[in-house]
C-alpha cells in the first residue's frame, strides 16, 4: 500500500485529550503555534469485532473497504466495511502456525506465516482466490512482509536470517540476502531501492537492492538485552512516514526476560543517514513493547503497546510533541493497528480481559478457555 503524502505539519496545540503517558522527544521542537488545526481523535464505531482467535496483524485494503486480520489459527479474517456494519467474509486459508504479517498490492493480499509460507490471494471478491503460494519461502518463522510504494517489489524476512525479494505478481524469487541473524522487521525506502531490516540485537540493516549489499548499519542497542541465556527484545517493527525521510523503529527497552518487563520505545530516525531525531519512551516497564505502528496523513503516528497481561494501550503521537495527544486504554494488550488510507478510520486489535492465569482456569461453561483479540474500529475526526 502506498502511504498518502504527508500533510503540512500542524502548527497549533491540540485540543485533544492530554495523555497520561510521559514521552520524551529527542529533537528540540518548539510548541506548535496556536493556529495549527487540531489533530484527529478517535471515536468508537460500534462494538468490537470478535474473532474467536488471537490476532497478530490488522491491515486495511488500499481502498479502505476491507479489513484483514492475521490470526493464530492460520487464517486471515476479512471484514467488508463498505456497508453500515462490518460483514465478515470467508477467510483466507492454507497457512500453518500463525499468520504473522500482511501487506496489500491493490486487491492482492500478501500473507506470511510462522512455518515459512508466503501467499498471494485476490480478495476483491467475496470468496478469496489464491493467486500463488511459496510453501517454503523461508525456513521457519517468516516474520515480516513489505511492498514497495510503487507495488513493484515484495520483500520478506525471517528467523532464518534471510531477506528475500519476490515478484509480487508471480511469486518468483528475485533475490536473497543472508544477513545471518534473526530478522524481525522490514520496510522499503521511499524509492523502493533500499530496505530497512531490523534484527533481534537492535541493529537496523540498510540493504541497497540494486547493488545487493548492506550499505549501512544503524545501531539501536537499547532495543536488546542479554538476560541470562536469552536475547530479549529486538527491533520489532519499522515504519517509514509518508515524507520518506522519517523512519520509526519500535520495540522496547527490555529489563529482563520471563515476564518481559520492558518500557515501550519508538525511535524517530532520519532514514537517509540513521541519525536520531526523537523518541517516544513509555512510562514504566509494565507497558511492554510497541507492537505495531501506522502513519496518519495528518502527520502523526499511531502505535499499540502490549505489556503485562491486562496492560497496553494505543497512542497517537506527533513526533514534534512531547507526549501523545491521545491514549486509548480500553482494549488491553494491543498487538496491532491500522489506519485507513484516507485517514478516517482506525482499527485496533487487543486481547480479551483475564487472558492470563496459572493452572487450570475455566471458562463460563467449564471449558478450557481460548483467548481472542477483539478489534475495535474508530473514526478519526477533528474535534
Amino acid at each position, binding site marked *: 500500500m502506498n502511504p498518502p503524502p504527508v500533510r503540512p505539519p500542524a502548527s497549533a496545540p491540540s485540543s485533544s485529550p492530554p495523555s497520561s503517558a510521559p514521552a520524551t522527544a529527542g529533537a528540540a521542537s518548539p510548541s506548535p503555534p496556536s493556529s495549527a488545526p487540531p489533530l484527529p481523535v478517535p471515536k468508537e464505531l460500534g462494538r468490537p469485532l470478535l474473532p474467536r482467535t488471537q490476532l497478530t496483524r490488522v491491515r486495511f485494503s488500499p481502498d479502505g473497504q476491507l479489513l484483514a486480520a492475521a490470526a*493464530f489459527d492460520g487464517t486471515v479474517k476479512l471484514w467488508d466495511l463498505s456497508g453500515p456494519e462490518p460483514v465478515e467474509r470467508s477467510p483466507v486459508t492454507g497457512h500453518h502456525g500463525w499468520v504473522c504479517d500482511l501487506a496489500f498490492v491493490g486487491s492482492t493480499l500478501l500473507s506470511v506465516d510462522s512455518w515459512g509460507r508466503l501467499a498471494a490471494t485476490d480478495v476483491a471478491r467475496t470468496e478469496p482466490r489464491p493467486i500463488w503460494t511459496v510453501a517454503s519461502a523461508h525456513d521457519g518463522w517468516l516474520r515480516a512482509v513489505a511492498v514497495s510504494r510503487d507495488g513493484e517489489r515484495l520483500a520478506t524476512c525471517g528467523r532464518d536470517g534471510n531477506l528475500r525479494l519476490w515478484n509480487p505478481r508471480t511469486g518468483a524469487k528475485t533475490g536473497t540476502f543472508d544477513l545471518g541473524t534473526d530478522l524481525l522487521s522490514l520496510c522499503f525506502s521511499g524509492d523502493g531501492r533500499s530496505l530497512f531490516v531490523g534484527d533481534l540485537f537492535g541493529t537496523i540493516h540498510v540493504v541497497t537492492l540494486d547493488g545487493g549489499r548492506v550499505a549501512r548499519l544503524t545501531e539501536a542497542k537499547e532495543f536488546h538485552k542479554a538476560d*541470562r*541465556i536469552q536475547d530479549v527484545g529486538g527491533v520489532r517493527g519499522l515504519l517509514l512516514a509518508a515524507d520518506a525521510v522519517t523512519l520509526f523503529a519500535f520495540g522496547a527497552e527490555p529489563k529482563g526476560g520471563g515476564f518481559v518487563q520492558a518500557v515501550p520505545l519508538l525511535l524517530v530516525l532520519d532514514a537517509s543517514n540513521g541519525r536520531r531525531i526523537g523518541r517516544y519512551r513509555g512510562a514504566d516497564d509494565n507497558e511492554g513493547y510497541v507492537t505495531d505502528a501506522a502513519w496518519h496523513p495528518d502527520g502523526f503516528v499511531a502505535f499499540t503497546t502490549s505489556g503485562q497481561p491486562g496492560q497496553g494501550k494505543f497512542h497517537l503521537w506527533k513526533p514534534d510533541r512531547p507526549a501523545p495527544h491521545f491514549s486509548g486504554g480500553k482494549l488491553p494488550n494491543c498487538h496491532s493497528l491500522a489506519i485507513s488510507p484516507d485517514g478516517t478510520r482506525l482499527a485496533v486489535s487487543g486481547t480479551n480481559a483475564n487472558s492470563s492465569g496459572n493452572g487450570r482456569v475455566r471458562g463460563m461453561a467449564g471449558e478450557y478457555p481460548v483467548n481472542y483479540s477483539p478489534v475495535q474500529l474508530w473514526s478519526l475526526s477533528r474535534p
Partner: protein
Amino acid sequence: MLCRPEEHRLSRRRFLGVAGTALGLGGLASPLVAEQLRKQRRQVLFIWLDGGMSQLESWDPKPNTPFGGPLRAIPTSVPGVHISETLPNCARVMEHLAIVRSVSTQDNSHSAGVDRIQRGDPKNRGVVYPYFGSAVAKLVGPGDSGLPPYIWVKPMAGGFVAKDAGFLGPKYGALALGDGKPPENLLRPPDLSAEEDAERDELRRRFDGYYSRQRRRDHTEANTQVFETAAQLQKQIELFDLSKLPPRDLERYGTHDLGRHLLLARRLLEAGVTFVKVTSYGWDSHGDHFNQVLSQHPKFDRPFAAVIEDLHDRGLLESVLVIVCAEFGRTPRINGHLGRDHWPEAWSVCMAGRGLRRGVVAGRTNATGTEVASEPVDIGGLFHTWYRALGIDPEQVQFRNAGQPLPIAHEDMGPVEEVLA
C-alpha cells in the same frame, strides 16, 4: 538395605586398585577393571530448568492446534516420534531418550512447586524430605571418586546448601559451584606452607572435636565434611579448568552458562560424582514466550544433545541416569502478552540413561494439550521410576529419621513401567 551386596563385591586386587588412587578411576592399572567399576556406578545428571520449560515447544508439540503456538514439530531419530523444532539436536539423539508426556503434578507456584517436585511430594508426615540429590547421595553414597556425592552447578553464587538434605541432616546437602567455579579460596595460599596448613588443620580438628561433644552430631559432621570436601577438591582442581579441553568440546556445548555448566557436569560425572545437578534460571516465560523459546531452547538443545552423545560414547549412559525437569510446564493458553503461564496439569519430563529404555515415549496428552489422556504421572511416580532405574527398590528401601522409617517415594504411587529397562 540401601544397596545390593554384589554391587560391593570386589576382588582384593581391584580393591587395591581403587584404594591406590585418589583421583577416581583415572589411575587404575587395568582399563578393564576401570570399565567394570564404571558400570557398577550409579550416577545422576539432574538438569533443572527453573521456572518451567514449555512442553508444547519441547517434548510434546501440538502444531496447528488452538494452543499449539507458531512453531513446527520435527521428526526424530525414532520413527513416529516428533518433538518441537526448537530442539533439532535432541531430535537427533532421541534414540537415547525416554519421554514421559503425562506428567501431572499438584502445585502451580514456584515457591512451593520447586520444593514439592525436588522432594518428591511425599505424604505429609511432619518432616522435611530431602531433595532428590540429597536422597541419592544418602542411598548411593559418594562412590569411588573422592568427590562429594551431591554437586550442584549453578549460575551466580555457590556454597554449601544444607537445606536440600531435609531430615537426612546437613552433610547430605549440596556443594553448589557458583558459575561452575570451585569454592572461593579453595587453594592453599602460596605463602602458607603445607606443614603450616596441616598444623592448622589439626588444630581445627581438635576444636571441632571439643565443640562437637556439646552439640548436635549431624551439624558438626557437616562442618567437618566441608573441610574434607575442600581437601578433596584441591586434589582435583583441574576438573574446573575447561580451557584445557578440546576446542570442539567448547564449541559443541557453547560458552553460555548452561553450555559451560553441562560440560563441567560431564567432567564431574566422568570423575565419578554420584549426583550432579545443573540449574538454568529464567525459564518462566509469562511474556513474549515464543521469542524467548527461540532464543533459549537452542542453548539447552545443543549442550544437552552433546552431553547425551558424550555419555553414550564413553559408555556412561549405562551408569548415569539423566533427567530434565522443572517445577511444572506451561499453560496451553497463550496470554495477552504472548506468554504461557504455570501449568502443572499436563506436562513432560525427559530422561535417558541408566535403567531406562531408549527411544520411548510414555503417556500422552489430548489433541490440544489441555489434559493428560493416559494415566497421569505425579512426581511421586517419577521418583519411583528414577529409584528403580538406579537399582533402588522403593518397596524395600526406607529412610530412617531418628528411628522413624519413612518411604523414599510416595507409597501410593508406582513407577512408569513403560520407560524402565
